[in-house]
């Protein structure tokens, strides 16, 4: 089209041009899709082989498992979303409609996270009286690793615990992860911490315990404010009172967990 079309024929020309552009575009798109599809299927089969080849490592090594899960996440395969559709053909493996983990590893991975989730729920329930339903992810990991009976310990990473807790979400169980300072906690009683409460818990994390006068001094709070926050935490069972010192001290029960009593 070196020269500009004139007259009525130009209209026909323009439609033709648009059409050929469109077909060319469609062609390009389809070849592109086709090549992407091949790439994806190649990748999936590679991932499949990789998972099968390293399945024992994935199951036994928490760091490796976390890395593998992260890799899956990056390429848009969410092992957890897949875990939640675990269903009818659970064990049968490669059948269609099974979850991602089921397809590549015969259901073992699902079972793994469900087992961790069950342990976490058990632990939260057992310790709810002593810690008011707030338990550190790290403490939780230690306990799951130790297990209750001999040989029942599970080698898990914090990442596994977090995944397991997230896998409980669809059940509407009220289990959630909260951040206080630098630490992550599992909250098993659905209740919000307000900023003041979170701040006090953070202080306890650092110092081991708090008292009203410590809060007044360090945070410039008025006495009433400090007392209210502490009373609230006490009422929720999140701190324990020690009244045998010169001033009442409030301690976090997070370190009690090793006690199986």
């Amino acid at each position, binding site marked *: 089209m070196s020269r500009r079309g004139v007259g009525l024929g130009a209209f026909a020309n323009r439609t033709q041009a648009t059409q050929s552009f469109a077909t060319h575009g469609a062609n390009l798109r389809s070849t592109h899709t086709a090549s992407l599809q091949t790439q994806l299927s190649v990748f999936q089969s590679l991932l499949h082989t990789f998972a099968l080849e390293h399945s024992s490592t994935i199951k036994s090594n928490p760091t490796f498992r976390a890395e593998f899960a992260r890799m899956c996440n990056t390429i848009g395969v969410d092992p957890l979303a897949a875990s939640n559709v675990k269903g009818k053909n659970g064990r049968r493996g490669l059948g269609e409609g099974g979850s991602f983990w089921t397809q590549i590893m015969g259901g073992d991975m699902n079972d793994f996270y469900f087992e961790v989730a069950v342990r976490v729920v058990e632990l939260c329930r057992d310790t709810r*009286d*002593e810690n008011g339903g707030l338990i550190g992810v790290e403490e939780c990991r230690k306990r799951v690793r130790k297990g209750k009976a001999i040989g029942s310990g599970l080698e898990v990473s914090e990442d596994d615990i977090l995944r397991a807790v997230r896998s409980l979400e669809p059940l509407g169980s009220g289990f959630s992860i909260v951040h206080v300072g630098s630490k992550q906690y599992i909250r098993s009683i659905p209740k919000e911490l307000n900023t003041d409460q979170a701040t006090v818990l953070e202080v306890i994390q650092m110092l081991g315990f708090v008292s009203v006068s410590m809060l007044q001094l360090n945070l410039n709070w008025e006495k009433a404010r400090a007392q209210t926050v502490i009373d609230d935490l*006490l*009422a929720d069972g999140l701190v*324990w009172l*020690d009244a045998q010192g010169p001033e009442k001290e409030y301690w976090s029960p997070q370190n*009690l967990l090793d*006690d199986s*009593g």
Partner: protein
Amino acid sequence: MATSTTTTTPFTFPPTYNFPPFFTPQPNSTTRHSQLQKWSSLIQSWCRHHRTYRLSLVDAVDSPLFHNAALRKRLDLAEARAVVDWMTKKEEEEGGGGQRAEWIEGASAGGNAMPKSVAWIWWRRPEEWADVLVDWIDATGQRGVVLTVFELVQGEATVSQEFHGMDNDVMMKALNVLVKRGKASVFGNEGEEGVKFF
């Protein structure tokens, strides 16, 4: 403490023992419940370790059990009494510690009789001791054999058994459980009872 200590290994305290608030009665009822459970299991394992069957609170409040010298915290007499009182209650009906303790009525402390000052600590309840006895009798094929209570408690044959050197009254309680179940009969004068298992 009144009872002799037979074991030489030191008692390992649970982590709770080094948690200062453990020694203050918790104002929150849920927390309190958890605290009482922890005290109950600590008292039971302490008594088991030291083979203590009757615990005199007046004596115990100054022992390491109720007095953490390192932390300078202690459970005072009234508080220790509250814990043991909780242990004596039934688990379901009264929300207590499952009858892991029992007050000894009319026991005297320092000459004058005081209620709720001495208690049996049932790290094994008499019924549970009865089961232990029956197991031992079965394992050693002594059904139908007549034994004296002294033999059971002090005899050479029972040295390896948990009930060796046991408080005589506890042994009699356990035997009485078996009598009620029709598994044994006790005869003879007080102090020199004999027992036959069937």
